[in-house]
């Protein structure tokens, strides 16, 4: 998985990486997996495991958002809609169907994901009628519609929201079930992201990102593809939404539909590398941990907001393509420079072969 991340992330399979490289990549992945799985067992401090849980949630959300926005190039700034919808779906269902706390509610998260996916269909149909920057603004508008609806619709409990049933987990081990469920969702999401990335579907999305009109002229069914990616990206967000609010224990409109959520996942994906697989994961891990640390250290909202905004600006202006592509490029430049100096050292000029006339 990590090995597939080059600057363009050659989907069509570059010459097979040397077996040694593959073994190395596999090894690294296994170690990372082990760390993730063992984490809450080793580190039992609830404050830390909470942060870990939140990090996982955002890793899922950023990764899912990337499936749509990263691959297709359309920046959707309204995914909080799905987060909140998933949360509310679970909360309302738990309340009205009298579902007990704990694992039964976890099962309800599936319902949350499903509802989010269903909601994504009309939202996507409307939003995707527009292009590029109008699209972004429309997603923002739809986001505010949902926030307003949450405030005003009866069954959502209005301003005070809904309380979710308390899970029967012991205080000491409260976080662990949440953590593991989130981890499972994360693995599934990343798997889907990877599958799409290497599939024809993903390739055509990337083509849309580069030149949508030309893609259309090559027979790519752009409307269908965009909508599909949009819906697929909504489902994991809905899933973790339900989980998240169950963890917190309460959901209310301001919290469920928070503009900062949208910005956060966008920032995370940008920071790590938009359109890559590892990028959003890395970005989310770093940022969410940082965010939680900041909130716990500086209790004031203000400093946290300022720090966040400044960081965002720095990333956008300095590393417009994100850390992962930036680092990859730098490494490639070094490699190219090394190769070039090696070539200069050789006395004879190597004639560039290739088909006569084709090479200019």
């Amino acid at each position: 998985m990590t090995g597939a991340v080059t600057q363009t992330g050659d989907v069509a399979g570059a010459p097979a990486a040397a077996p040694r490289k593959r073994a190395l990549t596999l090894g690294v992945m296994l170690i990372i997996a082990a760390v993730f799985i063992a984490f809450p067992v080793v580190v039992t401090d609830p404050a830390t495991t909470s942060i870990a849980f939140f990090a996982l949630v955002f890793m899922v959300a950023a990764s899912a958002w990337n499936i749509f926005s990263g691959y297709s190039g359309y920046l959707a700034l309204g995914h909080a809609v799905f987060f909140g919808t998933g949360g509310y779906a679970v909360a309302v269902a738990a309340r009205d169907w009298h579902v007990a706390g704990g694992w039964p509610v976890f099962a309800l998260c599936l319902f949350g994901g499903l509802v989010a996916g269903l909601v994504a269909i009309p939202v996507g149909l409307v939003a995707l009628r527009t292009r590029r920057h109008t699209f972004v603004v429309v997603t923002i508008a739809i986001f505010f519609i949902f926030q307003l609806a949450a405030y005003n619709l009866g069954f959502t409990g209005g301003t005070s929201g809904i309380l979710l049933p308390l899970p029967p987990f012991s205080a000491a081990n409260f976080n662990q079930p949440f953590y593991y469920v989130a981890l499972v969702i994360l693995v599934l999401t990343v798997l889907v992201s990877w599958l799409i990335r290497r599939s024809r579907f993903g390739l055509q999305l990337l083509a849309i990102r580069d030149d949508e009109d030309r893609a259309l002229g090559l027979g790519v069914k752009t409307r269908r593809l965009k909508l599909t990616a949009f819906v697929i990206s909504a489902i994991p967000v809905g899933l973790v939404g339900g989980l998240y609010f169950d963890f917190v224990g309460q959901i209310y409109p301001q919290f469920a539909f928070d503009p900062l959520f949208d910005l956060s996942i966008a920032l995370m994906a940008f920071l790590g590398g938009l359109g890559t697989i590892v990028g959003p994961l890395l970005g989310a891990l770093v940022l969410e941990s940082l965010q939680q640390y900041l909130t716990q250290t500086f209790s004031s909202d203000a400093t946290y907001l300022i720090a966040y905004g400044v960081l965002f600006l720095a990333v956008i202006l300095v590393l417009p393509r994100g850390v992962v592509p930036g680092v990859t490029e730098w490494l490639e430049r070094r490699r190219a420079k090394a190769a070039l100096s090696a070539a200069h050292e050789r006395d004879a000029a190597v004639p560039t072969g290739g088909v006569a006339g084709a090479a200019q």
Partner: protein
Amino acid sequence: MSFTALLQAIVDGVLTGGVYALMAAGLTLIFGVMDIINIAQGVMVILGAYLSYELSVHVGIGLLPGLLITVPLMFGVGVAIEFCFMRRLRDQDRTQMSILVTYAVAIVIEGILTAIFGVDYQQLQASYVNSSVHLLGFYLPDIYLIGFVLAIALLAGLYYMLYRTKFGRAVRSSLQNRTAADLIGIDVNRVRTLSVGIGVAVTAVGGMVFGATNSFNPNTGYDLISRLLAIVILGGMGSIGGAMAAAVFILVINDVVAVAWSPTWAPLVYFVALVIVLSFRPQGLFGRAAVRAQ
């Protein structure tokens, strides 16, 4: 709901619409000249409101005279932001990136305001804030009237500037054909900076009126920008006239719905209207279709 109540709602809508039109005009001007969507416009209105607040409460300068200070200040803020951030945006994906950048700037400003003023709601006070004029059986709150008059005056000024001054012609030509403007010797960068400055300066006035008619805190900026965006897109991005028409249109409907149905659902109207219009006419009511002059 009586007929008079309906008419009152319409009048209210028109009056507030004027003020929103002014703020939206600033937003659309910035887009037209820079291809940049300034998400921070909402929080800048709040900043303007807080500036008026500071001046009136701690320095003792009234709201109206205070504008003489806040307007140039906000102009400076606009210029600073253009210089520091907007200029660095590359031409590719410029508009999309500008959304992220200005969103971030908005957060920073919100953070600064929260640090200084806290999250308590404020409202601007003045002798005329609560009084109103009785005219033909309608209540015309003084502050709305003043705001409306100010807005109209400023919009007229904006039009004058654009169509009668040399600078205005420079702005319009940069808008219509950047290469040609360059070749004529127009300093397009300077034009852009000044346009952004103007686009933000109007928020000082909007802030004063908004702050006097609504209670606000640093968080109110989000609500505002979403309304302004809806207005600007509905009217067509880059069209000042469109922004004005859309502002009045939406505000009237908003107020009518508030009276006829429920005040809490009223803001929904903005977005529903937006979504509907965009579905059928992606460039807005008066906007140019996707391809622009250059």
